C-alpha cells in the first residue's frame, strides 16, 4: 500500500531522512515514535508530498508519489492528514470545514456532500456541533472535526502527526477513541504519537526513528518491553517517566 524505497531527504545540510526503506501493507496500523527532530513528521509528510524528497521513491497504491506526472489531487484525496494543531478553517462552520473538499475537489453536489459530511461528523460524535465555528469548540472536539474532514474523502490511508500532543490530558481519550474505531474499520494508518497505550492496544508495528534513520521496527510488545537498542530503551524510559 505504502512503500519507501531508499528515500533520502535533506533540509539544506541536515539529512532528515536517511535511506528509508519501509513497506506498510493495507490495513496496517503503524505507530511512529522517536525524539524531537528525528524526522517523524517529515517522514509522513512525504507520503502525500507535503514535502519533496531528493532521492529514492515513495509508492502509494502503485502510484509513484514524487513523479512529475503524478495526479496529486487524486493521490491526496486518497490520503487523509491530521495535524497536531488541527488547522481547521476558522471562517467556516464545522460542517463547511468538512464539506469543503467533497464539494470542490470531488465536485459532489452540495446536498450529497452535506449528507456524507454529516455521516462523518456522526462517526466522530459531533453531529450537534455542525453549525458551530471552530473557535467555539474544545481542542478535542476540533481535532475530531479535523479527523472527520480527513475521512470525508473516503481515504484508504490516514496519516496522523501527533494528533493528541496539543490537547489537554482530559481530551486525549476522546480523540484516541475515534482513532481506535477507525482501526476496527480496517483503515491503513500511520500515527506519529508517543501514546504508548494506543500503540500497545492497536498498533501492528512500532517504528522508532532517530536522526533520520529507522532504528527499530517491530511489534509493540517487543518494542516497549524489550527494545533492541540503547537509544530506544532510553527513549522508552523517558516517555514512561513523563
Amino acid at each position, binding site marked *: 500500500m505504502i512503500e519507501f524505497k531508499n528515500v533520502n531527504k535533506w533540509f539544506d545540510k541536515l539529512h532528515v531522512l536517511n535511506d528509508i526503506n519501509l513497506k506498510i501493507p493495507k490495513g496496517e496500523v503503524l505507530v511512529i515514535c522517536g525524539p524531537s527532530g528525528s524526522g517523524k513528521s517529515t517522514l509522513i509528510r512525504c507520503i502525500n508530498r*507535503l514535502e519533496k524528497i531528493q532521492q529514492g521513491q515513495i509508492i502509494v497504491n502503485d502510484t509513484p508519489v514524487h513523479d512529475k506526472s503524478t495526479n496529486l489531487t487524486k493521490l491526496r484525496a486518497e490520503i487523509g492528514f491530521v495535524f497536531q*494543531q488541527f*488547522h481547521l478553517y*476558522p471562517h467556516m462552520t464545522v460542517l463547511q470545514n468538512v464539506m469543503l473538499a467533497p464539494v470542490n475537489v470531488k465536485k459532489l453536489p452540495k446536498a450529497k456532500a452535506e449528507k456524507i459530511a454529516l455521516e462523518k461528523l456522526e462517526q466522530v460524535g459531533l453531529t450537534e456541533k455542525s453549525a458551530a465555528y471552530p473557535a467555539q469548540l474544545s481542542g478535542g472536539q476540533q481535532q475530531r472535526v479535523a479527523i472527520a474532514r480527513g475521512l470525508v474523502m473516503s481515504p484508504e490511508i490516514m496519516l496522523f502527526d501527533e494528533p493528541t500532543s496539543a490537547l489537554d490530558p482530559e481530551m486525549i481519550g476522546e480523540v484516541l477513541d475515534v482513532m481506535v474505531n477507525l482501526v476496527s474499520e480496517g483503515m491503513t494508518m500511520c500515527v506519529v504519537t508517543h501514546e504508548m497505550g494506543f500503540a500497545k492496544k492497536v498498533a501492528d508495528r512500532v517504528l522508532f526513528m532517530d536522526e533520520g534513520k529507522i532504528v527499530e521496527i517491530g511489534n509493540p510488545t517487543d518494542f516497549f518491553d524489550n527494545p533492541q537498542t540503547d537509544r530506544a530503551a532510553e527513549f522508552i524510559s523517558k516517555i514512561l517517566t513523563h
Partner: protein
Amino acid sequence: MLVDFNFRVILEYLPLFLTGLRSTFFIAVVSIILALITGIIACSCRISGIKIIKYPAIAYIEIVRSTPLLVQIYFLYFGLPTLGLRIPEIQTGILALMLNSGAYIAEIIRAGINSVDEGQIEAGVSSGLNYVQRMRLIILPQALGVTVPPLLGQNIVLVKDSALLSLISVMELTRCGQTMTSERFMPAEAFLTVAFFYMCIYFCLKALADWSQRKLIFREAY
C-alpha cells in the same frame, strides 16, 4: 482676527472650489482604482515563486517606498519629458499616485495573505485543493477582513497626497486655494476652505472604513 474673516470671498470663489473638489475627487477615484489594480498585480508577482516577475516587483515596491512622493511626481513631470515621453499634468499626477499607492497596497494585501496560518494552507493542500481554490476559499476570505481597513486608510492617504499635484499645476483643490490666495491674498480663507473640503472627503472615507470594519472583519466566533 475672526471678525476680519471674509466669508463673502469664499462664496465668491465657491464655484472654483467646487471644480477643484470635483477634480480632486476624480483624480482620487481614478488613482485608487488604478492603484488597486497595480497593487494586486504587484502583490501577485511579489508572492509568486517565479524569479523574473518576483524581483522586478520587489524592486518596484522598495523604490516607491524608499523615496518621497514629491520626488516621484517631479521625476515623472520633469524627468519623463526629457526622456522623450510627454504626458499632460493630470495624467502624470494620476500615474504618480497610482504607482505610489500601488506599492503600498501590494504590501497591505501581502500582509493580509501572510496573516493566514500556513497550517491551514497545508490542510487545504492535503485535501487536494489546488492553488486557486486555496486562495479563493481559504486565504482571501480571511485576508479580506484584515486587508480592507488598511486599504481604506491608504485611500485616505492618497486623497491627501493628491494635494502635491498642485505643485505640477494640476487644477485640484489645493491649487484652487493657491489661485485664490494669489488673486485676493486671503490665504486663511482660502486654505481653511480647502481644508474643510478635504475633511469632508476624509469623513466620508472614514465612515466607509468603520462600516467595513464592522461588516467585513472576520472575527472568530465566540
